[in-house]
């Protein structure tokens, strides 16, 4: 019990709780929630492309801070993530 709790982290994506493995990136939490990341300048839904912090397609709002690269940010307990609706 204790172990599995330590190995998982729960965050909220667009208000819905999602459990991810400890050490998972925010991008993973967004994809596991069935969401995509940012909305493009012409309104398209975008999701991670490069996975390494260079393409900026994975930007989301984390704890109220916009434009964060979700692939370069690790999930912390109770993070509030807001992604493309």
């Amino acid at each position: 019990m204790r172990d599995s709790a330590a190995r998982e982290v729960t965050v909220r994506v667009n208000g819905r709780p999602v459990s991810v493995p400890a050490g998972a990136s925010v991008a993973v939490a967004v994809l596991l929630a069935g969401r995509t990341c940012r909305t493009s300048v012409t309104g398209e839904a975008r999701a991670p492309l490069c996975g390494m912090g260079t393409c900026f397609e994975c930007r989301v709002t984390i704890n109220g801070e916009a434009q964060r690269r979700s692939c370069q940010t690790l999930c912390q307990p109770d993070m509030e993530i807001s992604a493309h609706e």
Partner: protein
Amino acid sequence: MSDTRQFAFGVVVIGGGPAGIAAAIAAAESGARVALLDDNPRPGGQIWRGGPGAVHRADAGSWFERLERSAVTKIYGARVFSAGDGFVEAESDEAVLRVNYRSLVLATGARERFLPFPGWTLPNVMGAGGLQALVKSGLPIEGKRVIVAGTGPLLLAVGAYMKEHGAKVLCICEQTTWTKFMGFGLRMTLLPGKIREALQLKVQIRGIPYRTNCWPVSATGSDRLESVRISDGGEIREIECDYLACGFHLVPNLELPRLIGCRVEGDFVQVDEMQRTSVANVYCAGEPTGIGGLDLSLAEGRIAGHAAAGNEDAARKLGPRRASYRKVVPLMAEAFRLRSELKRLARADTLVCRCEDVPFERMKNFDSWRAAKLQTRCGMGPCQGRVCGPATEFLFGWRVDSARPPVFAVKCSSLAEMAVGAGESRQ
């Protein structure tokens, strides 16, 4: 508002992949006070992404251990966005770091080259290394149908990795020819340790169709990827899948070397036998000096680290090792050269610049990167042309070679702290 924190080290290494790790350890062994800075939350760069906890080639573990045991100051989650005389500036979540150095080692690595084709902006169309990075970051891939496509040895590694993690790898589509691919494979096996690696890989990818002369033509899906059309030996086939992992080999990350003024010739930073660049006290190691893979990066990193710490004797001893792995660079470039058919994948309305949503038809009639940027905003978004720049180099033959601070999109508060005014570096 961020605050600025000041640090000073003898040797500062930028980039925590294999080259940077090797450089930092070598510099510390040679007696320098060393700092290692990396944008990622953990060391390892791309090839060893996920840090010590993840599974890598056997020797990765000992490098991580040596790094851990060393006296190197590790600063992760810090994006270097600016540089001046004897210092670099980085942004972390909490602060702007101004890190002063006597010697600097640039180990900025490489990224994948992406090429536009209809549907490439759909969610779940990713880089080959891109999908691998996501899986290493915790994305479950078991039971998912994956097509790996593009070009380069990375495709094989990614296919093997996905299979090992339970994905159904439907196909590896390699755009180069069978003759070129086999020629490359045979010549690689002449290098130390490579026969074993090749045989291991062969076992790992057993059962996955490996197609040469094969590339993606388009991707379709309503709100995310549903199927991919591939050109396979001249025939078009449509395959349903969950992920397309597609990258066209690697391009070096030259933004920071260029900002600092290091001479770049062809596509790479010019270095001498000590990994010295054209700028005094600035060294460069790994992919930015030529795409040559892990063993070359480790050798160059060690040389750069020792030399940056003033221990040129130790650096010189590694010369033969570097020379043997250096042979990979031209072999790789030739084997995975992009075929011209790939220039015709994008249709008029296919986006080329994904940050600013600029389609192919708006870009194709310009004669330079600069002109296209000014008129269409391509390359002006947050990625600063890191994605569309290498694509347009191939599609239109443009040279993408400007770099000015900040070389990374940063918070306004970090810009306010930037010591080097953007005006200073404008020509």
